[in-house]
């Protein structure tokens, strides 16, 4: 019937309506639709309306269809309906069916919109339900996964609230506690205190539940349900809500009881003598090393080295078993007599014991300890039917910690003990440095020394020398060491004297010069201008040797070290007069560009006149001046005045001053204010392996430089 459009419409009103209708659809939603699609829609719907208007018999369904067609094409805006009705009214129909036609169109549009709305609502509801089910399913499966993880974890897991109520525990945790689920119900975290709890564990717990920290870890013991103790490695984490408020705590516990017990046993075994139960050699040295680790300036310590008199006789005549019983009894007496005084008693091996006095107040206290040892062993020991009289000899050493090393101290105490033995048994003897040096050389040094160089038993440590004004590392002093197979590591003060006496100083001195110049040249190659100057001690005998100049020249050439990087340290006794042979050699060395410093200045009976003849450029103030500043027995004020005087004397002569033996920041600062140029001592670093020096050069800012920057 659509082809009848032009026949039934002689005045062309239909074409006009069609155009107006298409224009109506193009506005609004139509702008989003493809023009071709829109034009097809306009044509089809206009056609329907045309038929509804013109057909002989009015068919409301045609208008309804047109209305529905718009909704189906997403013309759902009510404005479209309003515009359409206005347009339909503008083109009246002859037989007055206009209102009915408009009504039918509107009804068709509305019915379709209702259907569409319901369909879309249903679709979006279905989508929302599907999505929600999907979420729930995923949550269920994730919860199931978590539950499985929680329940079957090999590690004990417990969940608590921030009030400390235990909310859930897994099977592994029940097993650790030896408890059933009902036993854990209603328990509180605070009930789980154990007297051996690591200090800090409950503080950490309080911080955690109050939200100050997010987790902590400790090894912690618990009482099992049966009263036994179980050791655990405990990790507790805090769970917060989205706003960061603490919500729950999760504890994870691993049973480490076996490991803990084994560790405890091993630790005890490693540090205790199985026979007497006293701390063993390792424990003693560990304690001694700790003491030397970071001592207070001026801190002192004491050692009593104890050896039983006549123990060998007991052992040989009455048997090892009796000997062991005797040792056990002796150990018990020493422990009872000295441990309450705060001293450590250790068994070093055989019938040797040692008493360590930390924070010793002086020689008297150490001697008192030695007397206590002798008194404790005065009465005979009753073993079975035997009444055994045991005596002991004691070597007593009492020193400032800063003046020695653990190895040297024990060796010195041991040698002092031998002097006590030699002097007759049952007595104590006090350490004497001269006797000690003599004993060292007598016992071991002189015999072995000649071959030690060939065996490679010597090595060189380097001690930092620091510029006080800038705090930077400017030089290092080469210090030779001897790794003696029986005596351990010996310092130069313990063997250089013997080396001088035996003449070994010549090859040893040359070896030190070669090694250290090579090392210094290596630092220059690696670090350039940051490399420290090298300072090497020159023994009297070396200075007097005709070959010195040639040796140094050869060594500098072969190592490639710039002579300006080398300083030789001589003592006041090297040059005794203006005619001295040594003087010529030293001038020749200085002419090569090497500098010269006087070591231990102020300790000899100085003939200051030699300063006029010697081409020295620096003085090193002996460590004893600075060290003595802490000795309560000496006049501190006077000590500083001597140092100050030496500094100004040196500066008057145009010499660089180095202070040795500087042990504290306060001393370093005081020396700096006095104008002292360089310093060395424990405060700036002990003698160390060359690798450690390289590490310090590499660190541009030395920690020791702090004091200089603060002012």
């Amino acid at each position, binding site marked *: 019937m659509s082809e009848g459009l032009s026949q039934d419409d002689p005045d062309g009103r239909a074409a006009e309506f069609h155009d107006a209708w298409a224009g109506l659809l193009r506005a*609004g*939603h139509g*702008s*989003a*639709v*493809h*023009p071709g699609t829109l034009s097809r829609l306009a044509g089809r719907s206009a056609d329907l309306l045309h038929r509804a208007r013109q057909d002989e018999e009015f068919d409301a369904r045609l208008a309804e269809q047109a209305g529905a067609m718009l909704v189906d094409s*997403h013309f*759902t*805006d009510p404005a479209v309906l309003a515009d359409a009705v206005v347009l339909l009214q503008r083109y009246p129909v002859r037989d007055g069916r206009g209102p009915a036609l408009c009504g039918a169109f509107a009804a068709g549009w509305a019915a379709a919109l209702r259907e*569409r*709305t319901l369909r*879309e*609502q249903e*679709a*979006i509801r*279905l*989508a*929302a339900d*599907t*999505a*929600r089910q*999907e*979420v729930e399913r*995923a*949550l269920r*499966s*994730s919860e199931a996964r978590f539950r499985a993880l929680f329940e079957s974890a090999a590690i004990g897991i417990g969940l608590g609230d921030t009030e400390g109520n235990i909310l859930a525990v897994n099977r592994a945790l029940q097993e650790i506690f030896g408890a059933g689920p009902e036993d854990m119900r209603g328990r509180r975290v605070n009930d789980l205190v154990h007297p051996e709890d690591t200090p800090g564990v409950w503080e950490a717990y309080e911080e955690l539940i109050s939200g100050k920290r997010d987790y902590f870890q400790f090894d912690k013991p618990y009482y099992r349900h049966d009263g036994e103790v179980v050791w655990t490695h405990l990790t507790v984490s805090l769970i917060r809500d989205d706003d960061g408020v603490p919500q729950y705590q999760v504890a994870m516990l691993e049973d480490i009881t076996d490991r803990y017990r084994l560790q405890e046993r091993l630790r005890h075994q490693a540090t205790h003598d199985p026979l007497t139960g006293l701390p063993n050699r390792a424990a003693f040295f560990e304690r001694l090393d700790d003491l030397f680790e970071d001592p207070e300036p001026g801190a002192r310590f004491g050692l009593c080295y104890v050896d039983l008199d006549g123990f060998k006789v007991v052992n040989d005549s009455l048997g090892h078993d009796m000997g062991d019983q005797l040792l056990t009894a002796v150990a018990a007496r020493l422990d009872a007599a000295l441990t309450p005084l705060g001293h450590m008693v250790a068994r070093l091996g055989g019938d040797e014991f040692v008493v360590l006095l930390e924070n010793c107040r002086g020689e008297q206290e150490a001697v008192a300890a030695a007397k206590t040892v002798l008194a404790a062993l005065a009465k005979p020991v009753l073993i079975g039917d035997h009444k055994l009289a045991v005596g002991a000899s004691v070597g007593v050493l009492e020193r400032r910690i800063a003046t020695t090393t653990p190895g040297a101290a024990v060796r010195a105490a041991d040698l002092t003990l031998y002097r006590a033995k030699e002097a007759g048994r049952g007595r104590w003897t006090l350490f004497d440095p001269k006797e000690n040096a003599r004993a060292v050389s007598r016992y071991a040094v002189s015999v072995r020394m000649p071959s030690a160089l060939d065996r490679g038993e010597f090595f060189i440590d380097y001690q930092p020398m620091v510029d006080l004004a800038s705090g930077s590392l400017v030089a290092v002093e080469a210090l030779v060491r001897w790794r003696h197979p029986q005596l351990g590591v010996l310092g130069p003060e313990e063997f250089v004297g013997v080396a001088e006496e035996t003449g070994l100083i010549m090859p040893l001195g040359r070896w030190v010069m070669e090694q250290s110049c090579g090392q210094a040249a290596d630092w220059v190659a690696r670090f350039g201008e940051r490399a420290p100057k090298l300072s090497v001690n020159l023994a009297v005998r070396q200075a007097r040797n005709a070959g010195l100049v040639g040796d140094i020249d050869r060594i500098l050439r072969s190592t490639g070290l710039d002579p300006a990087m080398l300083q030789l340290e001589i003592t006041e006794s090297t040059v005794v007069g203006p005619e001295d042979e040594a003087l010529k050699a030293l001038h020749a060395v200085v002419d090569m560009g090497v500098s010269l410093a006087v070591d231990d200045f102020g300790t000899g009976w100085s003939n200051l006149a030699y300063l006029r003849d010697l081409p020295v450029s620096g003085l090193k103030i002996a460590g004893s001046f600075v060290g003595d500043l802490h000795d309560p027995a000496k006049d501190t004020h006077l000590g500083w005045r001597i140092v100050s005087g030496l500094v100004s004397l040196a500066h008057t002569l145009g010499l660089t001053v180095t202070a040795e033996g500087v042990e504290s920041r306060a001393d370093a600062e005081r020396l700096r204010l006095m104008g002292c140029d360089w310093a060395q001592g424990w405060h700036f670093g002990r003698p160390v392996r060359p690798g450690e020096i390289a590490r310090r050069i590499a660190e541009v800012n030395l920690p020791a430089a702090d004091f200089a920057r603060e002012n």
Partner: protein
Amino acid sequence: MRRPNWVPAGTDLDKPNAARVYDYYLGGSHNFEADREMARKAMELWPDLPQIMRANRAFLRRSVEYLAEQGHTRFLDIGSGIPTFGPVHEIARAIRPEARVVYVDHDPVAVAHSRLILKDDELCSVVEADLRDVPDLLSRPEVAELLAPGEPVVLLLVAVLHFVKDEDEPEKLVARLRDALPPGSALVICHASLEGRPDQAGSHQDLYKRTPTPLTMRSLERITGFFEGFELLEPGVVFLPEWRPDRPEAVGAHPERMTGAAGVGRLP
């Protein structure tokens, strides 16, 4: 903190959702009261909004038609939402019956709805993924297959980048997607711009702050920046009605009132 990917997003129907609000602007009924309440409030402040959404939809249609006419048959529509009318596959298939489309959205309801509609369509698939997690998005089998070497792909980022906050670095996200596209691919972007109606931008962004998808309008310069590495097709980045209009008069007197900036780029 990002959720682990096996814990799905919530489906809170009491909060307005960008996809359903958009549907309401376009006269659809795929929405709930919370969506309508927000949309009504927005329209009260800015009565042009339905018209803007239609302009947006019209741009999507024109760009897909244009690219399909150029021979494109693969489309990746990220942020597809609820395709109220004229979804990409319908537009493309009018020209390329073999066209394949992967729809991506991070709203579980929109995804569920799309799946209901497309369950019998073998050439289309729907992926629930987040544009902010590009590696995860690219690792989805449907996406990986579509991007497999061979044929260029049309990447559609239509009205979605303005839901990516600056802190999520939208430029980087687009660049990562770009790097995954075969040569000859195309990028379609439209994005709410600050320049069209500066007077409306502030209050409109405020309204979206309450939704799970806050809105960030950006300058034309920044929107153009998203096309780094692409050759912008004529007429460049322009206001929505200005991009290759069906008829010159369809641009209207004030294209800037449609505020959205649109452009299409081609990957060399």
